[in-house]
């Protein structure tokens, strides 16, 4: 069962564009929502994370927007660069659980 649905599966933007990746969840017990970035040949690495007491979090060019009532959250990459080309995974975790539930991933390509 897929508890975190991620879209799109792939995304191509021009340099400077603002790619947006969306995730939706079902489990209302989830209270920690990280995004992971994975480059080819590497394991995923934490990019940015949010908890549901805020609606937005920014770290550099990366922003998470969170809509608790809609059970959705999204990642925006401002002024995207070719070096941002990677696979991005959203994830979620609940207070009672130790493990993360991941989305299916989005392969982002930023064209020069």
């Amino acid at each position, binding site marked *: *069962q897929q508890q975190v649905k*991620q879209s799109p*599966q792939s995304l191509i933007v021009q340099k400077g564009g603002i790619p947006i990746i969306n995730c939706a969840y079902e489990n209302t017990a989830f209270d*920690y929502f*990280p995004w*992971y970035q994975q480059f080819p*040949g*590497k*394991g*995923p*690495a*934490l990019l940015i*994370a949010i908890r549901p007491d805020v609606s937005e979090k920014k770290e550099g060019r990366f922003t998470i927007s969170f809509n608790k009532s809609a059970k959705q959250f999204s990642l925006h990459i401002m002024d995207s660069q070719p070096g941002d080309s990677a696979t991005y*995974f959203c994830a979620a*975790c609940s*207070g009672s659980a*130790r*493990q*993360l*539930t*991941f*989305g*299916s*991933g989005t392969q982002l390509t930023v064209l020069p």
Partner: protein
Amino acid sequence: DVKVTQSSRYLVKRTGEKVFLECVQDMDHENMFWYRQDPGLGLRLIYFSYDVKMKEKGDIPEGYSVSREKKERFSLILESASTNQTSMYLCASNWNRAEAFFGQGTRLTVV
């Protein structure tokens, strides 16, 4: 620098072989995880462990087992490898609900 190390980057095994994937972390983390990564399916949890000798099934445990005899080491075992277990396997570790650190992955091919 924190580190999760997987013993092999690439493995090729024959159908029916018993396969061991090893993972070691140097951060004294309580929790360790094994995921498999397949295109379009994301990361799916196979097993995790929250203490030495403790293990919990994830979403897709069938055909796998695990061992955690020491806090820093978590092994994934394929009892009898099959072609549908060809995949990228990722080990991770963390403290409770904190950042998970991943290894570089083991790409396993079963022929």
